[in-house]
């Protein structure tokens, strides 16, 4: 079943085309990451799906419902993690999470959610006094409190330190294992690679590529770079048959190859390549 279906979506602000013919779908239980530079149309697309904005043309369906006409029952099945960090400042973590549970018919246990996002020690702290990372974790708690079937994560880990990001990922992994459908926008390619089943690269309001993170942009078929150290100098060679090259090298060295490395293009390499190719069009 498709949890999210987007067909030829278009949105124009004045004479700026924010979203120009975007189509994609997200299967139930899948995590799709939207990647793209600032202003590419990620947030506009997400906000149309969340019901905050209306598309000019095209169609969108979330859980089978047009977001522009989603009612209370539909909203109860969504979780939205906003890029907000100033609201609810006078309340404590405990108060905010317990209050938000009251909007949903079948919420998770608020204290469990506070525990899951790692804020138990801060439960009595005012939200306005939380660090940036803690504040984002509160937003995630508020996004998942209603046991959503579809979760929207808009740049959830901006400003996290690496350890906090890892913790956040394991939280999202847990939601995924429970079958939550996730639409993620992020600037961190490592994050998309870790969390997403598929990534869609958006540039100038269009999707330029959409595939599994390991295959996007021909990553799986591309040349591998084999590098090693030979008599004190670094050598490297691109090859479509890295295994054969390594076997040859191994024979030459009579076993171990000094400082051997085999590298596929990273998601970042591929992403930047895709954007560059798009710009040159």
């Amino acid at each position, binding site marked *: 079943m498709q949890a999210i279906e987007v067909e030829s979506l278009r949105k124009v602000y004045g004479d700026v085309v924010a979203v120009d013919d975007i189509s994609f779908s997200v299967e139930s239980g899948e995590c799709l990451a939207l990647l793209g530079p600032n202003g590419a149309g990620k947030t506009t697309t997400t906000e149309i799906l*969340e*019901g*905050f*904005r*209306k598309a000019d043309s095209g169609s969108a369906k979330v859980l089978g419902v047009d977001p522009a006409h989603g009612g*209370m*029952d539909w*909203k*109860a099945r*969504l979780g*939205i993690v*906003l*890029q*907000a960090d*100033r*609201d*609810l400042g*006078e*309340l404590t973590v405990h*108060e905010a999470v317990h*209050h*938000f549970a*009251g*909007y*949903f018919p079948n919420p998770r246990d608020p204290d469990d959610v506070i525990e899951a996002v790692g804020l138990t020690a801060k439960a009595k702290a*005012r939200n306005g006094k939380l660090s940036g990372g803690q504040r984002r974790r509160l937003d995630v708690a*508020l996004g998942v409190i*209603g046991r959503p079937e579809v979760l929207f994560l808009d740049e959830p880990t901006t400003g996290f330190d690496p350890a906090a990001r890892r913790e956040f990922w394991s939280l999202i992994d847990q939601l995924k294992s429970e079958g939550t459908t996730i639409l993620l926008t992020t600037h961190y390619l490592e994050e998309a690679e870790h969390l997403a089943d598929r990534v869609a690269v958006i540039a100038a309001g269009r999707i330029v590529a959409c595939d599994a993170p390991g295959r996007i942009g021909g990553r799986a078929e591309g040349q591998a770079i084999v590098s090693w150290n030979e008599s004190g100098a670094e050598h490297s060679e691109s090859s479509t048959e890295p295994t054969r090259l390594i076997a040859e090298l191994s024979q030459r060295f009579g076993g171990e190859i000094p400082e051997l490395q085999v590298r596929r293009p990273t998601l970042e390499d591929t992403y930047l390549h895709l954007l560059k190719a798009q710009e040159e069009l």
Partner: protein
Amino acid sequence: MNRTLSIGRSRIILELRQFFRDRESAIFNFMLPMILLVIFGSVFANQDIGFEDITFAQYFLAGMIASGILYTSFQNLAIAIPMERDDSTLKRLAGLPMPKASYFIGKAGMVFVAYVAQVIILLIVGILFFGISLPSTADRWFTFIWVSILGLLSCTLLGIAFSVVPKQGKGASAIVAPIVLVLQFTSGVFFVFTNLPTWMQNFASFFPLKWLTQTMRYVFLPDGAEVIEASGEWQLGLSALVLTAWTVGGLALALLLFRWSPRGEK
């Protein structure tokens, strides 16, 4: 309907927590009338208002309670809602399965509770420090109740409608506070109304505060004190009429103007 009310009730509690914990709001909307009562009541302790031995503090208390209506409803909401529009509070709510009416129930409930608490403290301060006497007849208490309700209703709706005027949450108080101040100066809150120039009295007659203040004087001043009113009468019927008109107008404006998203966004 039940859900709208139960969520509305939990929003009232949330709104009150935010109202009292935010230092600016607690001082500016809640504490100010007490502070002003102490200052003006002390400075003008011996001023004669022209009827028997009524002190300025007693006259001023009526104005402060009337101002309290304006502070807790109009000033509070016209500043807080633009801030909520700016800091994504309203956006967050729009994405929740929350009946829209619950939001307004939360606001109205907060205003009501804050006003009642404010009146109680004002009366205690007035009785303890300025020898103010409570309304003496059932009639006066009844008037106190209806004028409070009509005043809170009209000024709450006007505050919700006015929340579209400030472009940003940050500058909202700079726009709203002067309006409230001008109304207070022209409506007989800080000075005896009849000492004001006629044009100023006429100007104030278009707005709710003059009528709230005058009716509160009926509640807190003794029989016969209407001789110091501009018309020589309490004009309770006219007051009810003006406040009802502002309530209806405020409702129409709020329905017409209120918006959830910031300007430039739809």
